[in-house]
Every structure is written in structure tokens, then in C-alpha cells.
């Protein structure tokens, strides 16, 4: 889960007045189609296609990078942006919408080869690739980069730890051991262009991990620990122009040693890329509309003030707006340790989904969700609905029957946890409170500080049990767009943690767990998608998760921006493709 969207989308989305016809996503056309600007065109097509190089592409953002160091970052925009100066082993296909979720090569010469049980992966990189200083990129540098980003004793705390959890490696600290390369045995480099990964367990989706910025090469001698972020040694088409100034700016210029021929995923159109950090959100939106900047780096769309202005004055802005699915699911966890299955199902029946949808801002806020996996993910069936009701208003009779089954015919009392200050989350809880009251289920809404929500409250096993927290409002966006990338951490019994628990409903279903194991040993993506679909259905049957919406973001697409399209893999515009029209 990248930090990006957790509840950040559409803070002020009182947007139900937005025309439902503008809901988008129904053009049905995907792939390499191109189109002139139009409402939601960028969600599915390339808008303003161009190969015109030159100019300056201007980004701005309110809050800072977590880090510009590819080995120390977990923000979605940062992953997307770091590709300017950090090439990774694999990449996502540069194409609009779902087509972007397919993998392709970047540094690699070909796709990785697994062994039979998916515990060993071998990959080769292209020869003759160079850093900005002209020195050659080697497999050892990639190995070192993975080592430093996963085994650093807290020096680089921000990034995810997928390698650490999947590699068959004793823990160590790259900055403390004498010879990190020798200590790091789980990755072998038989020669300068080959990497062999040894995993603890079968992991069919391991190639997705290889798209992450942690695989961008870092020569051991260039590593300065946490200070490396100031001036990252570039392997991509751009390099730092002077040091990154935290909270102030980051400027990039062309890296002459980058060879376009080795890199099919980056057109690298602009001559310069600038990022202004610390610009107030309203100001960013104003400048975007006035053409004074080109892209909001945060990739979460316009702020609430501008959004409501745009919705009110739709005719003016219509052709510059995209309203794609963000890839995130908003949902309510129904906690298994607190509530029995039938009681959970009663909640699923009684919930007024229409009202929940409106709580999330209606059609511009997102699409009403009745299943687990977002439509952008293979295996998803948005049509499936295990708890149907007329107009989605809830099936009270079925709910009553389930209540009797779980021994609470008169309903029960429990608490619902929400994050402080998140209006849509609170609105969701209130809506649920209203609709469950109809069958005698009394919810009390408890708000908790957002930053400690998972660490101490809803994500703490003890807290949930001791305080009768039966439900919690949550949100989830995948690290990569697959069923595993999306669903493992929130539904697998193996992912349950004592604190900081994201499988907050603590679903530990043998059938679900077995299916996850099976998926990790299945090579064919289509077969895997099928398994993910089964998991989806099982989770719905268990009523451990009550899906609310697949949310949508509202992006403003300036006219002078070329090659604009929305990619599902990063859930924002594909930064690598962007260019500026110079007249």
C-alpha cells in the first residue's frame, strides 16, 4: 500500500450534484488510442500525443517527497517520478489505463525466469548501460541497491520491505558488516549482467517487486546512506541539477549518458524538469488552471476548493478534466474477533450502499462497490454482489434472518472506528450507523488520530478486543495492480499483525489462505486472476470486508501538456510520457 491515497482523495467531495452521465469509464476503449482533449479523455486515451522534445516541464507539490532516494521511498508519486533518474529492472507498460499494469523490461534484457516452484528467479540486464558520470551499470550495483534499501538498520526507513520479507536471507546491516556484498547471499551475481534471487517461499508475482525503485542501481562507493537523497547518481534520462533542497525544490536536466535506444519506456521529451515544493494546494490548482505550472506532482487530483469550483462551472473546465478510478477501494472492516460470521453478514445485508455511495461524493467520488477487487485489477468482477437489495438500499429481511442466526435477534451494540478529520470516512460511518439502526444494530462512532489509527487503535489486536471495536473505516490502494498486490495484506491470515495490522478484520480463513499460497505458485497471470476472483468471493461470503466505493480522482489536464494519459499502475498520469507543447 503506497501512502498516497489513504483517505486523502476528495476531502470535500460534496459532489453528488455532479452529472452522473459524466461518470466516465464507459467509453470502453483502451490501449493506444489517442484523442483530442475532452472530458475524461486522459483516463483511457493518450491526449495531445506528440514527440516534440524540449522545454521545461514544471511540477509543483504541497508536501515534500518522503525521499528522493529510490531506495528509501514509498510515496506513489515518488515512485512514478523517480523513474526520471532511476531505472529499475522491470517497468510497467507505458499505456493508458489497465494496459499499463502489464510488465515490461527496463534495465533488464528480458523478463525474469523462475525455477519450478517460483523460489528462484534469474534476470539479465542490458550491457553497456551507463550512469550520469559515464561509468557502467552492473548487476552488482543493483544487488547493492537492494541490500541497502532493505537491510539498513533504520538508516533508510521509508521504503517497503518486500525483498526483506521474500528473500532467503539472514538479517544484517549493510552499513555495519565488513563486506555487505558477500554477506548478502540471497542475491547472486554470477557475472556483471546477471542477478539470481533466492526466495524463502514460492512467489509467482515476484517480477512486480522488480519494478520497484529499490532495484535502481546504486554503486556501493556512491552510497552516502540517508544523505544519498541529496544527489542521486542517475541511471535515467535526467540527472539532478544541483542538490535536492528538502521542502524547496528539485531540478532535473538531461543526462547525456542515457541512451534512448536501451529504454523503450521513456520518451524523455522535456529538456528540463523542475519541482517546486511547498506550494499551497489552492495555489497549485490556480497555477495549473492558469498554465503557470504543468503537473501537480502529488498525483491525487485537484484540491477540494478547486474541485467544487470546477463542478459548479463544468462547462469551462470540462475538456480539461479526467475522472479516472484511482485503483483504491474504500471499505469498512468488520472485525472477526468481535462479531460472528452471521452477525457480519447481517451488517452486509442491512447496509444502505446507496447512502454509503453518496457519503463518498456519489459518482464523481467513485463507483459503488459490491466486491473486493477494484475493476482495474485482473480477476475483478464488479458485477458480483452477494448481498443484493432493491436500489442498493439494503435487504432488511435477510439481515434480520442473519441476526437471528447469530443469536442476536434484537440486534446488538458495537463501535465503529474512524480516522479523525477525514470527512468522507466519518460520513461513511454515519451512513452506516443510520442504516444499521433499522435492524437494531447500534453503532457508536469513535474517532482516532489518523497517524496512529493502525499502530494503536483499529490496527491493534488488543485495543480492538478490549474496546469492542466491531468495525473500522479504511481504504486501500495496491502496491501493484494485481490481486496479490491489492488483497494479500488485507485478507491473508499470514498478514495479521499484533499492531500496525492492516488485515484489520483479522480474517484468517483456511480456504482464503490456501488460495493465496496457490496463487504464489501459479505462473500464468490469467490463472492467477481466476484465483483472485475466488478469493474476492470468499471474502465477501465471510463478510469480513464491506466494500463502499472504488474511488475516483479529479485531475486537471492543462492544454499545453502533451502525451497525457492516466496509468493504473501508478494511479496517476504517466510522468515519463509527459511533454510540453511549446506553441
Amino acid at each position, binding site marked *: 500500500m503506497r501512502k498516497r491515497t489513504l483517505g486523502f482523495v476528495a476531502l470535500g467531495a460534496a459532489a453528488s450534484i455532479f452529472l452522473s452521465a459524466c461518470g466516465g469509464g464507459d467509453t470502453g476503449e483502451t490501449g493506444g488510442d489517442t484523442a483530442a482533449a475532452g472530458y475524461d479523455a486522459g483516463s483511457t486515451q493518450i491526449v495531445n500525443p506528440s514527440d516534440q522534445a524540449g522545454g521545461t516541464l514544471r511540477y509543483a507539490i504541497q508536501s515534500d517527497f518522503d525521499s528522493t532516494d529510490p531506495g528509501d521511498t514509498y510515496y506513489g508519486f515518488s515512485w512514478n517520478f523517480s523513474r526520471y533518474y532511476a531505472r529499475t529492472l522491470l517497468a510497467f507498460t507505458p499505456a493508458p489505463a489497465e494496459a499499463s499494469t502489464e510488465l515490461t523490461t527496463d534495465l533488464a534484457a528480458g523478463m525474469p525466469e523462475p525455477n519450478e516452484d517460483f523460489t528462484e528467479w534469474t534476470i539479465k540486464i542490458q550491457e553497456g548501460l551507463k550512469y550520469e558520470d559515464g561509468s557502467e551499470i552492473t548487476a552488482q550495483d543493483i544487488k547493492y541497491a537492494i541490500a541497502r534499501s532493505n537491510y539498513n538498520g533504520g538508516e533508510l526507513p521509508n521504503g517497503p*520491505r518486500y525483498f*526483506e520479507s521474500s528473500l532467503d536471507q539472514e538479517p544484517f546491516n549493510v552499513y555495519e558488516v565488513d563486506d555487505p556484498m558477500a554477506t548478502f547471499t540471497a542475491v547472486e551475481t554470477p557475472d556483471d549482467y546477471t542477478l539470481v534471487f533466492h526466495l524463502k517461499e514460492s512467489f509467482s508475482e515476484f517480477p512486480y517487486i522488480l519494478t520497484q525503485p529499490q532495484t535502481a542501481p546504486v554503486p556501493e562507493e556512491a552510497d552516502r546512506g540517508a544523505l544519498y537523497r541529496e544527489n542521486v547518481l542517475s541511471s535515467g534520462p535526467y540527472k539532478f541539477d544541483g542538490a535536492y533542497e528538502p521542502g524547496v525544490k528539485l531540478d532535473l536536466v538531461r543526462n547525456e549518458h542515457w541512451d534512448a535506444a536501451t529504454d523503450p519506456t521513456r520518451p524523455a521529451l522535456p529538456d528540463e524538469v523542475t519541482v517546486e515544493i511547498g506550494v499551497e494546494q489552492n495555489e497549485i490548482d490556480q497555477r495549473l488552471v492558469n498554465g503557470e505550472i504543468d503537473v501537480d506532482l502529488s498525483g491525487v487530483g485537484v484540491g477540494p476548493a478547486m474541485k467544487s469550483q470546477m463542478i459548479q462551472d463544468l462547462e469551462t473546465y470540462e475538456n480539461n478534466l479526467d475522472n479516472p478510478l484511482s485503483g483504491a477501494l474504500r471499505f469498512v472492516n468488520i472485525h472477526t474477533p468481535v462479531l460472528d460470521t452471521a452477525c457480519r453478514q447481517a451488517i452486509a445485508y442491512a447496509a444502505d450502499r446507496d447512502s454509503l455511495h453518496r457519503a463518498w461524493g456519489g459518482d464523481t467520488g467513485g463507483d459503488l462497490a459490491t466486491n473486493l477487487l477494484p475493476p482495474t485489477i485482473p480477476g475483478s468482477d464488479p458485477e458480483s454482489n452477494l448481498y443484493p437489495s432493491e436500489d442498493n438500499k439494503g435487504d432488511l429481511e435477510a439481515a434480520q434472518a442473519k441476526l437471528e442466526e447469530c443469536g442476536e435477534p434484537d440486534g446488538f451494540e458495537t463501535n465503529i472506528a474512524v480516522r479523525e478529520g477525514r470527512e468522507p470516512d466519518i460520513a461513511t460511518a454515519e451512513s452506516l450507523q443510520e442504516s444499521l439502526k433499522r435492524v437494531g444494530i447500534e453503532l457508536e462512532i469513535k474517532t482516532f488520530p489518523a497517524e496512529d489509527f493502525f499502530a494503536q487503535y483499529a490496527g491493534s489486536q488488543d485495543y480492538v478486543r478490549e474496546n469492542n471495536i466491531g468495525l473500522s473505516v479504511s481504504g486501500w490502494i495496491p502496491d501493484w495492480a494485481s490481486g496479490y498486490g491489492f488483497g494479500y495484506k488485507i485478507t491473508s491470515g499470514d498478514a495479521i499483525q499484533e499492531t500496525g495490522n492492516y488485515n484489520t478484520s483479522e480474517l484468517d480463513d483456511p480456504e482464503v489462505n490456501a488460495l493465496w499460497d496457490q496463487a504464489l505458485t501459479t505462473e500464468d497471470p490469467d490463472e492467477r486472476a481466476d484465483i483472485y476472483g475466488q478469493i474476492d468471493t470468499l471474502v465477501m461470503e465471510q463478510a469480513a470486508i464491506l466494500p463502499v466505493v472504488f474511488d475516483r480522482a479529479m485531475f486537471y489536464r492543462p492544454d499545453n501538456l502533451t502525451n497525457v494519459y492516466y496509468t493504473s499502475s501508478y494511479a496517476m498520469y504517466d510522468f515519463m510520457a509527459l511533454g510540453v507543447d511549446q506553441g
Partner: protein
Amino acid sequence: MLNYILRRLGAGLLLLAVVTAVTFWIFYVLPKWAGVTPRGMAAMYVGKAPTPEALDATVERLGLDQPVIVQFFDFIRSLVFGDQFQFGRETVECAAPCLGYSFSTNSPVLEQLLARLPITASLAFGAAVIWLIGGVAVGVLSAVKKGSLFDRLAMSTALVGVSLPIYFTGLLALAFVVHGWKILPVPRYEPLTENPGAWFTALLLPWITLAFLHAAQYARQTRAGMLEVLGEDYIRTARAKGLSERKVIFKHALRPALTPILTIFGLDLGLVLGGAILTERVFSLKGVGAYAIEAIIGKDLPVVLGVTLLGAVFIVVCNLIVDLLYPLVDPRVRIAA
């Protein structure tokens, strides 16, 4: 005199120590009372979904499991004697006064503060000039023309000015002047020494916005002060000498009316120099205040401490300067040396 300054500086240092201790207490002891464990504290500095091992590593690296008093004296020690920080295999010296390293931006706090100070100082001094001159001028005119249309208009505007928050006036100013009528270019701060024009245009709106709030207050105070002074016997004496009204007002009435304003001005300037948080935020100026707000949101304790200390230093210094100036302005006041 020197004695007095030394004594005041000593008191200032004591104040700084207290401010540091209180800030420390707020950010370290209060969360502990609220049940936040060292791991919970560490979670603020690492990415989402960290493993317990990563949390423990961070706890150890930052010394979060040490007793608060130890952490506090570590801070004081590095402030006085400097400190060293380990990055990867690199050791970085942080010379005294070392305010520590920001955990989340991994840069020395002092360096960041000094880099941002020119912006805040430009904002503060420019705005101070405007609000002082504007506020006093309006206040004097209002007092002299008490009850006139100007007076009533100015005072109701001042009332509005005092009660309107900066994020409202600032956003309004931006929306109209920059984005609507395009009178001013989009403000992009440049140092005065490099591009005075850009420096001026980038700061003009922030100056006016910040000054408006203060000017309103100064106008009201000046008016009240003037009205009081104009009722004094020595003003009657001045008139009885045959002095012109202009001289009576500007020589005899203004000086005593401004004397109490000097005190407020010193305090206000000190406060703004410590970071005009809202103004910097609204106008996307990367000054000390913007740094502070990021740090508070990110719970970046060394930065919060650093900004708080810097602000306290400014207030102490500005107050000292005011107190030293006071006897020059009002000879009745003697510094008890």
C-alpha cells in the same frame, strides 16, 4: 549598562532553556502519557506498514528508548558542544550550536533554518515597515479627525482587518491580484541579492497581507494613544506656545503616543521573525514558518525544537533591543544598571 545587557541575556538564556524543556515535554512526555511506545514514536519516522524490526532499528538509531531526561540532555549537549551524525558509513560533523538533524528530511536543522531565514526576514521586515507606517499614519489621521467619515471608515476596516484570518485575505489577494487580474506575476521568491525585482514582486502581496492584519491593530492602538496624549496638559502647553497644529501633532503628540507601540512592535517583529506560519503557507514561501508547519505535521521533533528556539531567540533579542531603545525614546525610563 553592559551589566544590564549581560543580565538580560542571562535571563534570555534561562527562558530559552525553559522553552526547550517545555517543547521537549510536549513532544516526548505527553505522547508517552498518552500511551505511545518508543515503537509508536519510531513509526512517525518510517514509511507505512513497517516491520517491527524496522521500527526497533529506528528506535535504537534515534535513541527513542532512552529516558526523556537523557534525550533532553543529549540535545542540550549537542547544542553546546556540537555533535556527530552517522550516515551510512559516513560521519558528519555538526558544529555547535547543533540543533540536531531532522529525521524526516535528513538535513541539519540549523542549516535549514539559516537557509530559510532570509525569506522569513524579508517577509517580516518588509511587512513590519508597511504595517508600522500604514498603521500609525491611519491611526494618527483617525485620532486627529476623530468622528469623521475617514475615522469611522478606517476603524471599521481595522476591525475587519483584525478579525479576518490571513488564509482568507491571502487567498483572496492571490485569487484576484495574481490569478484573476494578473496584476502581479505568480510569486516566486528570489533572494534580494540575486533578483531584487522578483524579490519585491514575490513578497509584495505577502507583505501587504501580513501587514494588513497588524496595521489594523496598530491603527487602533495609535488612535487610542493619540487621543489620550492629545488630552494631556503638555499638548495644551504646546498649543499655548503658538505652535502649529502639525507641529503639535507630529512633534508633541506622536512621540508619546508611539512609545507604548514600540514595545508591541518589538514583540510582534520577534514573533513574525520566528516564522509567519500562515502567511508563508498561503503564499508558498519556504520560510521558517513553513518549515515549522511541516515539522509539526510530520512530528519532526528536532525541527520543532529548532524553530521554537529560534522564535524564542528572536523574541528575547527584540525585547532586549526595545528595552535598550526605550530610555532613548522616553527619558523618564532609566535602565536599572
